[in-house]
């Protein structure tokens, strides 16, 4: 579904991604894992067209990223991306204009589930509520691809649980693909199907989570310690 073909991304002299080739399969939850600066967010930005590859190409359903492809992608950025004047309902009304897969019923349900109110001014709510608001907009669509960039970063444990619950609540296994970047592996270990470990812009380990655990006889957290702690490449 999402293909990286020999993708290199440079910011000045820094290589954020170094000749990456991989396929992210349809209908799975894939974790892009790694420490800060490993290239996780850059990969997400390339899929959303926020960044362009320096070399190679990124394909969605075997086509280069286009306006048509963007119709099927829901994106949750790590940073706050709302306009300061927006209330939650303003953000909703704005976003829903562009997507045919917007599900108003799902929005209303999630609004209650996440304990948010459409009249809340985004500028005035807490960081956790803003994280929930971003999640609300991403999951109120029946998008084929959902990209979540560090959705758990800096969020308290109760909100994290709520976010993960939301992720799996209406997940359409086999149809919908979720790509999540995080270094909070413990919280998402039981949710993800595939894991891709990145370090210094290169893939150091990837595969089916169950298989990786069985092969190495380690949990994902321990695997990560192995990969990054020892600087060892598998």
């Amino acid at each position, binding site marked *: 579904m999402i293909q990286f073909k020999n993708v290199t991304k440079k910011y000045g002299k820094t290589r954020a991604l170094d000749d990456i080739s991989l396929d992210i399969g349809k209908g799975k939850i894939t974790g892009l894992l790694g420490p800060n600066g490993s290239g996780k967010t850059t990969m997400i930005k390339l899929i959303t067209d926020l960044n362009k590859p320096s070399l190679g190409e990124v394909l969605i359903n075997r086509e280069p990223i286009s306006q048509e492809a963007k119709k099927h992608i829901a994106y949750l950025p790590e940073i706050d991306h709302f306009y*300061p004047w927006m209330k939650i309902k303003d953000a909703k009304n704005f976003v829903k204009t562009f997507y045919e897969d917007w599900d108003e019923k799902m929005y209303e349900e999630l609004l209650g589930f996440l304990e948010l109110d459409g009249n809340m001014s985004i500028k005035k709510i807490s960081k956790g509520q803003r994280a929930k608001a971003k999640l609300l907009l991403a999951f109120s669509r029946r998008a084929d691809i959902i990209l979540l960039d560090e959705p758990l970063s800096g969020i308290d444990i109760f909100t994290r649980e709520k976010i993960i619950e939301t992720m799996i609540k209406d997940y359409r296994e086999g149809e919908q693909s979720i790509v999540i970047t995080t270094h909070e592996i413990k919280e998402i270990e039981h949710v993800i199907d595939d894991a891709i470990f990145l370090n210094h812009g290169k893939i150091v380990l990837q595969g089916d989570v169950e298989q990786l655990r069985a092969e190495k006889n380690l949990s994902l957290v321990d695997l990560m310690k192995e990969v990054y702690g020892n600087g060892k490449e598998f």
Partner: protein
Amino acid sequence: MEKSFNSKLWAMYKKDVMNLKTESIFMLAFVLGINAYVYYQVMTSDSPLGASGYGILSAMVVFGALFLVFIRSFGLVSSEWKDNTLHMIMPLPIGGNTIFFSKLLAILTQTFMVGGISLALTLGVLYRILELENIQQIFNFLAMDSGGLLSSNLMEIVKMAGYGFISFSSLIVMVFFSSVVGRMFTKLSGFITFVVFILSNVLIAQTTRLLDRVVNFDQGSRVMFLGEPGGGMTGSMNFMGTPELLFGIAFTVVISLVFFFATTYLYDQKVEL
């Protein structure tokens, strides 16, 4: 159901108008404040400026307000980067055409609103502070140049206003172009924006001179374009005839379209976060 282009453009336009709302209110407060000051001074004190001086000050406020709109148009593009809202805009299934057309419409809306209210306030204050005799003198002056035909000169003013509007739109498009070029560089982005804006104006001025020689209009009725010495920031004309006016409009529209599509191409193909 397929979302229509119009509904997407409308959503973008509303969003851009909301982004300009606070500064529009500040601009109007500024205009209102100056006009209130002028009115108060003339009505209550023996000021050295006198009624005419304050009248000129009041009229200058209209141009000041339009200049503020122009300056702030740079901010409408750069704030998308500064406030991280580009994370919301760039992943949308729309191209640069919709994004920049909506921004242009929003700025023109702001221009009409701020410029229109400023003008109405200024005219109101002028009407109150100038003696009836002075107002008659102004109308006599307008009528004098065309052999007493006041309506003829008023028509020239309407033509100038129309051409000024097109020139102003063109100027905003160039602001977009230079801002997008500036954003292609991570360092010295603001400086590059400024240099590109100046250079594009110079390029247009040179092209204008060249075309002017080719078309060879009568010097008394020639068109002055953006950036040309004496042309001013928004362009002006000097009692143009219909062919010259049409030529001026056509040239400005073509130039604006070229810069507009160059902007959207760069935005779609080259610009990154």
